């Protein structure tokens, strides 16, 4: 359905009940709280085998030989896959439009590119036997020279990581966003110009649930229960790599214990589980260890950022150039779009006359990077917001006022083609400044005390559908009503813990005027539910939510068109409210929805009522291929974070007194879920800013466990207050915009700006762990983790 068609029947805000009163619970709450919820690791079959992967101990290397003979002799070993089982088929990638550039072999045929690369797979009667078989497989390697620094990798003569001599040396992806007025002229006319360099480190998602899959093979069909954010994209790549049509691959997403971008790639372990299920005719389960999750899935790109900025005398930002170098590791996958996104965020949340942004994603032998909550927004906003703060300080302008001078407004169209709809960025700045006590405190700061702000913007519903789709439609929903007025909802969207199944159910229940338990929701199963491209790009509430609303409204319209003639009124004067179909004009005209449905089916020869809905944001692939001047998303969210802290100058330890978060998410559909997302963002952002750091040596992660990879605990969390009541977005479902991903971005720069104020040092890299701060205050170089 085109996005404007259904609007006649959209429920008006005065009739909102569920999302208005906002006091409903998650549909999976009881299952999760009681431990009955089914995650991949809970799926059991009586004759199920356990799978394990054989992984490369170092990289890069050439595989000289693989000897499985000893492992084959081990009783209980049922299947061993070697690279030969996949070598004739397709490599794994991400976007369908770039399928020919897919660059990851399911099992390495010759060259190993990263530590932990997939070499073989084993299925055995239990985990112990599978692990012993893995230990018995002898792989002979020849070590090859590697490259672990993206700048060295770009040099001619550096070892080729995963690059076939096309374009610039070892560059897997390049994105150039160049638009607006003559940029040289803007810089020539500027009254203040600055040139700054920043860098960020490697972080992992650390989702509670490790990655895993259970696969069966029945009647010529692979059935794969997968801890995934993109079941339909998995289906596409699995079909290609298994060499069968998509109608032989059913991917089912059970409950997922967190994704954060780490479960967007179609990993080899799931493919191997499927292949071994076929070969053994038995179910195969494969759950990664935490160490495997660290080393062999994905992580947040380290990015090196150079920024040149031009300002007018009054502090207005005129033009910006930047050069971002992303350490991609040896594979693309979900990481390729990071390059284009790293230029997109540099626009936000400010007005600019002219932009010239270049980003390069470089192949190295470090662990492969990919999507992670914010998809490079956390890195880019860290650098670009610190860049704003530095300029404010240099120009002697109050940092809140300085940000407001150039802040984006509703309706602003950026040179690179971004159309901003609703925008409460300035209001978030004002709220954060007021609530953190900026104006009372700023002239009375003690030694070691600091307040920092950071302002960011994000997409609310990226348009990119990953797979080719009509009109780039990425969310389809169906609604079925039976003779009792009970609704069955089929959604393809992926709840990975954020609560999207609940919000989809609530949107449909709201439109149909039904209580939550009259809507039964079926989700994320590629044979059962309609197409949806997945949980990424903050698209679920906005795109799938709009699709769900349209499906409900399509059902409502058909029901009204049947009931209205009986009552002798126009269908658009009816509404569904509190379990009834009512006339908005004549109070005496009303009927329980069950009776209305019974009537509908009687009139329509017994047919149940089906409503369909979809939603798309029309963009094109230019964002990833070529010009990069397009409107990425139907709406954008805006945030301000504010941190008030003191630094222990003897130790470098931060004591964060309070973190205030103001986030423009349009209208909150589920207030508790929004607060959970914002507070979770503060936790993850704090981890990024201070605690979490993947330390690598020659591509091997030295701290692949929760003892040495220190994300903050509950005791480390600061006091938090969140504010999110800003203007509803006209296009958003019931006025909503995203509230879970862009919100991760302003945390680290707000903390860093506060630390800068507290210490007088301008930090330009993360993480701000105590030793980093202590070294900087003592004028010592931080060479602890240099490659």
């Amino acid at each position, binding site marked *: 359905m085109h996005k404007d068609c259904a609007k006649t029947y959209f429920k008006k805000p005065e009739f909102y009940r569920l999302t208005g009163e906002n006091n409903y619970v998650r549909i999976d709450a009881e299952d999760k709280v009681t431990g009955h919820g089914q995650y991949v690791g809970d799926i059991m079959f009586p004759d199920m085998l356990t799978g394990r992967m054989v992984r490369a101990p170092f990289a890069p290397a050439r595989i000289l030989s693989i000897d499985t003979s000893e492992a084959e002799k081990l009783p209980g070993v049922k299947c061993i896959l070697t690279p030969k089982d996949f070598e004739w088929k397709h490599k794994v990638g991400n976007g369908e439009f770039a399928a020919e550039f897919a660059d990851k072999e399911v099992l390495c045929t010759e060259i190993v590119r990263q530590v932990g690369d997939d070499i073989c797979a084993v299925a055995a009667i239990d*985990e*112990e036997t599978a*692990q012993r078989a893995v230990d018995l497989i002898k792989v002979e390697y020849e070590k090859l020279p590697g490259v672990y620094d993206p700048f060295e990798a770009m040099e001619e003569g550096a070892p080729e990581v995963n690059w076939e001599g096309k374009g610039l040396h070892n560059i897997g992806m390049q994105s150039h966003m160049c638009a607006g007025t003559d940029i040289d002229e803007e810089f020539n006319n500027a009254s203040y110009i600055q040139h700054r360099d920043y860098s960020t480190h490697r972080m992992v998602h650390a989702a509670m649930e490790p990655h895993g899959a259970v696969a069966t093979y029945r009647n010529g069909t692979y059935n794969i229960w997968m801890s995934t954010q993109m079941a339909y994209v998995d289906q596409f790549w699995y079909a290609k790599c298994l060499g069968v049509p998509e109608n032989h691959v059913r991917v089912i997403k059970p409950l997922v214990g967190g994704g954060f971008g780490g479960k967007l790639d179609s990993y080899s372990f799931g493919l191997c589980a499927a292949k071994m299920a076929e070969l053994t005719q038995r179910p195969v389960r494969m759950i990664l*260890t935490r*160490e495997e999750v660290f080393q062999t899935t994905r992580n947040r790109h380290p990015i090196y950022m150079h920024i040149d900025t031009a300002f007018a005398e009054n502090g207005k930002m005129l033009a910006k150039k930047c050069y971002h170098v992303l350490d991609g590791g040896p594979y693309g996958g979900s990481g390729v779009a990071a390059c284009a996104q790293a230029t997109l965020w540099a626009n936000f949340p400010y007005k600019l006359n002219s932009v010239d942004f270049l980003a390069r994603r470089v192949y190295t032998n470090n662990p492969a990077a990919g999507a992670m909550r914010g998809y490079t927004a956390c890195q880019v906003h860290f650098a670009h917001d610190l860049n704003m703060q530095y300029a404010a300080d240099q120009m002697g302008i109050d940092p809140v006022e300085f940000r407001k001078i150039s802040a984006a407004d509703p309706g602003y169209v950026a040179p690179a083609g971004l159309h901003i709809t609703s925008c409460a960025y300035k209001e978030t700045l004002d709220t954060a400044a007021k609530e953190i006590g900026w104006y009372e405190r700023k002239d009375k700061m003690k030694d070691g005390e600091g307040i920092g702000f950071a302002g960011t913007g994000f997409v609310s519903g990226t348009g990119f559908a990953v797979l080719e789709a009509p009109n780039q439609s990425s969310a389809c929903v169906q609604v079925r009503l039976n003779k009792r007025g009970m609704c069955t909802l089929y959604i393809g969207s992926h709840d990975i813990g954020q609560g999207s199944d609940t919000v989809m159910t609530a949107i449909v229940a709201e439109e149909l005027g039904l209580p939550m338990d009259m809507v039964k929701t079926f989700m994320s199963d590629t044979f059962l539910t309609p197409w949806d491209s997945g949980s990424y790009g903050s698209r679920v509430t906005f795109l799938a939510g709009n699709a769900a609303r349209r499906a409900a409204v399509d059902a409502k319209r058909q029901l009204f068109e049947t009931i209205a003639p009986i009552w002798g009124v126009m269908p658009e004067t009816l509404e569904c409210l509190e379990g009834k179909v009512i006339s908005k004009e004549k109070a005496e005209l009303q009927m329980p929805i069950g009776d209305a449905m019974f009537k509908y089916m009687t009139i329509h020869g017994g047919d149940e009522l089906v409503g369909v809905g979809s939603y798309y944001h029309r963009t094109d692939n230019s964002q990833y291929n070529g010009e990069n001047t397009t409107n990425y998303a139907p709406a954008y969210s805006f945030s301000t974070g504010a941190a008030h802290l003191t630094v222990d100058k*003897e*130790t470098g330890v931060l004591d964060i007194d309070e973190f205030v978060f103001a986030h423009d998410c349009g209208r909150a559909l589920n207030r508790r879920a929004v607060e959970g997302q914002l507070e979770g963002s503060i936790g993850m952002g704090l981890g990024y800013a201070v*605690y979490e750091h993947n*330390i690598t040596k020659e591509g091997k992660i*030295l*701290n692949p466990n*929760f*003892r*040495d990879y*220190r994300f*903050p*605990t*509950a*005791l*480390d969390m600061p006091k938090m207050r969140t504010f999110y009541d800003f203007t509803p977005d006209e296009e958003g479902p019931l006025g909503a915009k995203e509230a879970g991903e862009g919100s991760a971005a302003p945390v680290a720069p707000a903390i860093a700006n506060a630390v800068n104020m507290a210490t007088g040092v301008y930090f330009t890299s993360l993480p701000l*762990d*105590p*030793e980093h701060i*202590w*070294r900087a205050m003592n004028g*010592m170089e931080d060479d*602890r983790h240099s490659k």
Partner: protein
Amino acid sequence: MVLPQFEYIAASSLEEACKLLLEHDGKAKVMAGATDLIPPMRDKVFTAEYVIDLKKIPGLDELSYDEKEGLKIGALTTLRTLEHSPLVKEKNPAVAYAAKVIASTQIRAKGTLVGNICNASPSNDSAPNLLAQGAKVNVQGVDGTRVIPIEEFFLGVRRTALKPGEIVTSVVIPPLAEDEKAAYMKFAVRKAMDLAIIGVAAKIKMKDGVCTDARVALGAVAVTPILAPAAAAELIGKKLTDEVIDKAAEAAMNSCSPISDIRASKEYRKEMVRVFTKRAVKQCLEQY
């Protein structure tokens, strides 16, 4: 990771446990809370063909206080018990605090102080207090019992003075006199679930405003937890002014040579020894 196969034996008496340990010397490990045993075995840090569990042996979970002998902590007394015991909090709050800052609630509910020292990790949080307060380690062997002064207990990383067939049955910490105060400071990045970057324990005795005795012990700065006698020497016989405490802190810093690892560099560890020696001594003083 998969736990390797081993034989589990629940000993019913100390004599049996010691005999088994001697019989399988080099191939057997003693288990109390298992929190420092099972994870490293799973991660293949070490192996054991036999695991001898002490938990069925009666009397090993003693926790008592004697005016003369001091605080006696049995081999099966958990860290969680120490953390919450009113007795420990009253008689030796530094010991209760050191127990509380180890790992997580779940681990403390299983893990023991004796296990913590027998694991002999340089960064263990139990040892600095024991060193600063001159604890004694009671040991049972096949041929009888003996007492090892804590200063002689640690030999290296994961190495102790225990001989084949010997098991630690308890640790005894001498009583703190009215004029003696002790403190432990753990420095770590996280407020829970973290290993010490460094740890400092101090014990001081004050008479008429003058320090008459002092001991300072350091964790995570050498292959074993160590005493810093040079730091104590700076305190003894003096009024504890800021200048005196600073000199002692400096001496503590200069008496250790930590390593750099993924948790911290050696120069940061040294500097933190200085900062936290100062803070530990001051915390002792605040208790008067």
